[in-house]
């Protein structure tokens, strides 16, 4: 009895991108822009790579102290929103459903297809292996970015953490490289979203309802989170 009722709610209500996820996505977008823009300004004061400076017009915060203030404001938005996302993604089964499994063969085939501009994008509710790798990978990079940021902020209080990055400059280097990976991801992500504008609409409106558990994912996760499904429907 209850089972079928839960299922019917799912049928009507579970969107590809439920409301909490959409809020977290755009919050993260704002936080990332603040962190990258202000981080570039902070970097300029002591560059890691010879002549690599970021022009002032693409940085955030004006003076150095302004950039630092923005960075340590954006930090809270990024981390709190990121934690909420990790909890939500794990508890709702979204990570398991959307990002796993990443199979080596599918990945190779999808990369080959992508390089030949043959990669199918008919079903937006299903991520191909390349998307799974990128979306899963960028979560890992973001976690590394936060950890290396903490190691730079508190190399004495968190000296054990900083030691994981070798030393203070090691943590700065990792922080820079992870930033570069995030910026690279963003460029691909935004470019592809612009190529398939429906994906942007989906991230604003919620997208198509997911009628049933997808073929590849475990069957149970939709049923175990009726609360998330109801929220998503609102």
């Amino acid at each position, binding site marked *: 009895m209850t089972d079928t009722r839960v299922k019917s709610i799912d049928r009507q209500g579970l969107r590809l991108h439920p409301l909490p996820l959409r809020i977290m996505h755009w919050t993260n977008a*704002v936080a990332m822009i603040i962190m990258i823009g202000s981080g570039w300004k*902070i*970097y300029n*004061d*002591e560059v890691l790579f010879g002549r690599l400076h970021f022009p002032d017009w693409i940085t*955030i915060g004006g*003076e*150095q*102290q*302004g950039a*630092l*203030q*923005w960075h*340590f*404001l954006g930090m*809270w938005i990024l981390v709190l929103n990121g934690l909420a996302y990790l909890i939500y993604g794990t508890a709702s089964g979204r990570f398991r459903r959307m990002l796993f499994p990443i199979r080596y063969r599918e990945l190779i085939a999808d990369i080959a297809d992508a390089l030949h501009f043959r990669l199918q994008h008919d079903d937006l509710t299903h991520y191909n292996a390349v998307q799974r790798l990128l979306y899963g990978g960028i979560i890992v990079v973001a976690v590394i970015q936060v950890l290396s940021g903490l190691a730079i*902020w*508190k*190399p*004495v*209080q968190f*000296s054990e953490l900083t*030691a994981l990055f070798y*030393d*203070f*400059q090691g943590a*700065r280097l990792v922080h820079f490289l992870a930033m570069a990976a995030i910026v690279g991801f963003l460029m691909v992500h935004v470019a592809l979203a612009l190529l398939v504008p429906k994906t942007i609409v989906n991230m604003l409106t919620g997208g198509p309802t997911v009628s049933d558990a997808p073929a590849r994912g475990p069957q149970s996760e939709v049923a175990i989170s009726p609360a998330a499904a109801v929220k998503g429907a609102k």
Partner: protein
Amino acid sequence: MSARTPSPSIFRPKRVIDQSVLEENKKLVEEINRRKLLRGAVSLGALSLLTGCDVTDRAAVQSVLKAVSSFNDGVQAVLFRPDHLAPTFTEAEVVKPPRFNAYYEITEVKPVDVGNWKLELAGLIQDKRPWTAQQLSELPEQELIVRHICVEGWDYIGQWSGVNLRQFLERVGADLTAKYVAFRCADDYTGSIDMPSALHSQTILAMKYAREPITDPFGFPLRLRMATKLGFKQPKWITSIEVTNVYPGGYWEDQGFNWFSGI
């Protein structure tokens, strides 16, 4: 449901606090809160609309940034581990000479005449007699080989020695429960730190670098050197120390750099 009856607690005063002041000023208090709330709302709105800021928006954004910075002061005070030691290094790793930084160039450093120099004491200190360099150098000496980290992102390993600040404050009868220790310098630089960081065992009033008297650009005859804060929190050419409960600010802090700046 009945209202909760006050439970007997040692933290609860037996006599209820007189509410008349609050009643009389109720309107004013509500007004202040409302104003704050409105300002907060405007500020949050401004944060999401970074483009097209006008002057009022910019002031609102500034007040949010400032509020977050002082919130971060509090967070850092909580994160501070009083007994946790900063990593130390060997003499072979020491960089000589240390790296210079001030709000002016190294060529503009005005050497301190140690003959006329005195360390003045002020504020919540019992024995405010000034100290000469000679007297200070006779105090027990502590050596620190620790990493100096600048807010700009550079660092080097330095070897500093001088009297432990906690021992010095105890010797002159400073109120160790006060909130701040403030410094004034010969070049008009000012700075202040929180008491727990001042009492950390790796905080010293340094007179020597690599076992030699500190040279002029690096703070001769006396500078603060602590393992738990960024470089700009460590004034050079100190001329006075004050222990106080009134927030003293500082040269860079007043321009928007984070006050606690612990590492």
